[in-house]
Structures are given as C-alpha cells and as structure tokens.
C-alpha cells in the first residue's frame, strides 16, 4: 500500500489504521456532515432514490464478500434479500418483536438459508455454482410464494410497520434516511474490517487459488460456507431494511433481474474492493435516473416512440454498460479510483 508523500508509519497502530492521514479524517468528517445535511436540502423524490440506493449498497457490499473476495459466483442474492425481508416482516407482524431485534434475526435466518445454498460450493465451483445459485433464486421465490403462502400471503403485498426507537417512529423519508444511512455506514465499515482480518485474507486466498489455500492450511469448506453465510447476512439486513422502508412489498421486488442488477453493479464498481460496491451502485442509480430524466425529452422529440420502447431504453443502456465494462474495464470504477489516488498520493512527483 503506497503512502502519501511525506507520511511514514512509525508505530504499529498507524499501520493498522483505516484512516491514516489528516486528509482521510477530514474526508470522513466531511462525509458525516454531508450525510447529516443531505436530507435537509434534497427533495423528497431524490431522497427516496438515495434511500433505495443506500439499501442496495448494503446488499451489493454483501455480494462483494462472496463474489469479490471469496470468488464464489452468486446469482441469487435478491432471493436471499427476500428471505431477509419476509422473515423480518413476519417476525414483527406475528411475534411483535421490535425492529432492532428483527433486523439481526432476519440477517441470521438469511445466513442459514445462505449456508444451505452455499454448501454445493464445497463440491462444485465456477459455472456449476453459478447455476446452483441461479436455481436458488427461483426455488426460494417459489417457496415463499407457494408452499408458504399461508404465512407470506403469496403474491400479495406483505405489510410491515415502520421501525420505532423509543418515541421516534421512522416513517418519513428524512427519518428513514438517517436510519438507513447509519446501517449503510456500519455495514460498510464492518465489510472493510472483515476484509482485513484473517477471515478476509482466507477468502482472498481461496479466490486466488483454492488448492494453494488448502495446502497452506486454510479450511476451504469452512471458508466458502462462511463467505456465503456473511454475504447472506448482509442480504438479510438489506432485505429487512427494505421491508420496513417500503412498508409493503411483494416477491417481484426480488426477481432474477434484481440479482443480475446487483452483480452488474458489483462489476461496474469493481470486485474485491470496498469502494467498488458503493461506486457501482451510485453509477447505476445515476444512470437510471439520467435515463428517467431524459425520457420525457425523448418522448417529446420522437413522438413515434411507444411507451414500451422508451421504457426499454434503460434495459438497453444497462446491458451495454455491463458489456462495455466487462470488455474494457473488468476491474471496474474502483480501479480507476485507485489509479487516481496513487497519482494523487505521489503528487507533486511523477513517480
């Protein structure tokens, strides 16, 4: 890890620190200030977009742990999120548990389901694992919709009360923003630290070469299953937030398309980095909003286009963005950000 010009580590604590320099701390404080001020200045619509984006960041952060760090393909992340959303909503509706208990419980339940579908990763990898997770996507949604219909209400929307903390009920966009942003910061911080621990290093070792990792004494079975469990925990937390944020949701919120979006965001952002999921989610959300913004203009300029044609523009753009990134920048926006940071650190010297 290159250090900025003129910065030297003289103590171990300095080498361990996430925030090393004054610039880092200034940026952290700036981020918190921004998060504090943002809901006060933004319109309600933009706040809705950002709230959804923050929830998705948590989900993609989890996906990054299993795909980016551990190298196990997962195309069922949205279904895991559905498990979290439904378990959180049902725990609250049927047992009257508080949101602050529902959220971790939803994470744990999802982690157990994640372990179940992660177990095949012990036997197969690569393409076969991708297919197992793809099947998981369909099977989980089917189980929620049909055999568990008496519990979940099938394809009907499930209503969820808003989260409460003492006297405060989080039911406006501004209040929800603070709640969700708090969780996003917390989960991102946990992911960053996880990547630096022994578990995180094990993940990377298994990703880069599983046989070499096994030879070095890493328990591959445990590592892979743990990666699925942690990723599903993140999905569960994101799902729980989604349930209590939307206050009414259906299984269509967690379709295969959503899973593909998550992987797409991860690829655009950059796999195996913490900043990647954040950048990728922001990029795709921004793109989505831009397309939405230009839709009325498009409709006015080209009156012969039908509604379906205009609404399919987003799909065209998304497909092209994924292909362009995979072909020309497979390491994602995070790599560009790294290049920028490296040159910034050495500034004013060329190298």
């Amino acid at each position, binding site marked *: 890890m290159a250090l900025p010009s003129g910065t030297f580590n003289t103590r171990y604590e300095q080498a361990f620190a996430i925030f090393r320099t004054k610039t880092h701390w200034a940026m952290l404080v700036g981020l918190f200030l921004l998060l504090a001020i943002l809901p006060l200045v933004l319109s309600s619509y933009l706040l809705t977009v950002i709230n959804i984006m923050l929830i998705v960041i948590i989900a993609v952060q989890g996906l990054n742990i299993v795909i980016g760090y551990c190298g196990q393909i997962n195309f069922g992340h949205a279904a895991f999120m559905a498990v979290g959303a439904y378990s959180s909503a049902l725990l609250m509706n049927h047992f009257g548990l508080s949101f602050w208990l529902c959220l971790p419980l939803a994470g744990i339940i999802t982690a157990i389901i994640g372990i179940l579908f992660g177990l095949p990763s012990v036997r197969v990898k690569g*393409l*076969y694992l*991708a297919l*197992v997770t793809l*099947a998981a996507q369909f*099977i989980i949604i089917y189980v929620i919709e049909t055999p568990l219909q008496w519990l979940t209400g099938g394809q009907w929307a499930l209503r969820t009360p808003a989260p409460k903390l003492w006297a405060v009920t989080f039911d406006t966009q501004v209040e929800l923003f603070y709640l969700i942003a708090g969780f996003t910061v917390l989960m991102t911080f946990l992911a960053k630290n996880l990547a630096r621990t022994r578990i995180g290093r094990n993940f990377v070792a298994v990703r880069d070469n599983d046989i070499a990792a096994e030879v070095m004494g890493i328990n591959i079975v445990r590592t892979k299953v743990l990666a699925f469990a942690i990723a599903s925990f993140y999905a569960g937390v994101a799902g729980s937030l989604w349930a209590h944020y939307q206050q009414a949701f259906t299984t269509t919120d967690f379709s295969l398309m959503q899973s593909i979006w998550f992987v797409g965001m991860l690829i655009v952002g950059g796999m195996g980095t913490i900043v990647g999921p954040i950048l990728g989610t922001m990029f795709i959300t921004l793109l989505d909003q831009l397309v939405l913004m230009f839709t009325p203009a498009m409709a006015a300029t080209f009156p012969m286009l039908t509604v379906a044609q205009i609404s399919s*523009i987003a799909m065209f753009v998304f497909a092209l963005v*994924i292909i362009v990134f995979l*072909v020309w920048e497979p390491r994602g926006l995070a790599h560009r950000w790294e290049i920028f940071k490296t040159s910034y650190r050495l500034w004013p010297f060329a190298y």
Partner: protein
Amino acid sequence: MTFFFQAVLSGLSAGAVYGLAALGFVLIYKTTGILNLAQGSIILLGGYLFSSLALQLGLPIWLAILLSILIMGALGYSVERFPLRPMLGQPHLAIIMVTLALAIFLNAIVTSVWGEFAIMATPYFLPAGTIEIGEVVITLNLFWSFIIAGAIAGAFVLFFQFSKIGLNMRATAEGHEIVRSMGISVSAIIAVTWAAASIIGTSGGILTGQIRGIDYGLADYGLKAIGGAILGGIDSIHGAIIGCLIVGVLETLAGGYIGHGIKEVFPYIILVFAIVIKPYGLFGLERIERV
C-alpha cells in the same frame, strides 16, 4: 394409472422440446466453454419473430418459419463478433454476465418492438385433435411436436457427426490451438456454432409456441432447459436430450401430483440435486478436480 401414463407421454413431448433448447446450451458449451444464459432470450425473440412474420406480415407458415430461423441464425452468427470474442478465456463470472447482458439486450429488443409482456397470437400449424392409445389421450400437437423435435435433434446429431463443419466444431471443442494449427478459423467455427445454437433454439421455441402459446414465458422455458442439460451432462449431446426427456417427465408428474406451481421450478430443483450428487451429469465428461 391412466393419469400417470398420460403425464409421462405429455412429459416426454415437453422434454423433447426442452431438448432442442438444451442442445443450444450444450453446443455452445462444448465448442467454446461458454454457458450461454441468453439462450432463453434468443428463443423468445425467435418465437415473437415467427408470430409476427406469419400473422402480421401474412407470410405463409413455412416461409415464416424459414425466415425467423434464418434471421435468428444470422443474429447468433454476429453475436460471436461482439460481445463474445473479446471474452474468450475470461473468468466464468465475466462470461456469464456478458451472456446475461446479451439476454437483457434481446429482451429489450422484444419489449421495444412488440411491447411490454406482449402476448402474441400464435399461428398454429400442427393438426388439432387427439389420438387415443388405450385410455390415454394425447393431443395431436404434443404428438407431432415430439416427432418434429426428435427429427430436428436427429438431423442435428447427424450434421454434428458427419458433416465437415460438424467435424470442425468437434475439433474446436477438443482444443483451440490444435484447430488453429490445422488451418481452421476458430472464430468462424464459433460463430457457426452460435448460429446453429440459435437455429435449434428458435425451432424449439416455435414448437413450444404450438403447445403453450407464444408469450414472454418463452424466455423462462429456454432457461429451464438448462436443468435437463446439466442432468444429462453439459458437454454431452445425447445426454442433453435424455436429460431433458427425464426432466420433462418428472416436471409433468410433479405438476400433476404436487401442484401446478411446482412445474415452473422443478427443473431447477432437479438441477441442484444433479449438481450436488453428480456434477458432470449422467453422460458428461468427468474432469476430476477435487478441492
């Protein structure tokens, strides 16, 4: 018992049509090592194209079939140039994502041309009516789609085994370097493979349309065939057909005895069990790689 035989027979014809879609998967996987998750969307586009050509342009059925197959073949051929050629040798995730992006792209074409979730009028060309074998009643369109699917699959296997291009395809499946050194253009062969896979998939889609109508669900039908392809072994041609027949029968039986909803996910349940118990399928080539 009558119900059982009824289900087995209609399952067999459903499986035979799955087999056509699965052949597309297997063919592309064998020659390029790419798992083409866009197959479902190729089938969707092909089915819509056929319906549009036959009913909206009023072409005769045989011409509509021929044209839609040719157009989809040309599409498959051009897909190889972009985005697939730069992806050769990339990690699995990247390749699968490219095919998924391709699937989204093709779905977007379908949406923008025919409207969102449009249900197409299906030009039926198979004879209506039923035949009775003992107490078992089979509709004629199921019977004929089984026969036609079998004929297409058989013709394809012959093409793959005995024609010059088929031989080149099989050689490419063995290894790209050797084929190149023999003066065969690998990218041309891969393009032909994609074209062949699209053609077979489209004909499967047209046949499925005869059974269940042409709508957005064709994409799901195409994707479900992957269960059969895995069960039979993803790199085995006859395995894919046999696997799909098994999946078709089991799916119909499960739909009949457990509940209709499970039909939609049953191939995926089979897929998970097949991968956990026998990852290389019934007839696939076993590459021992234990970790």
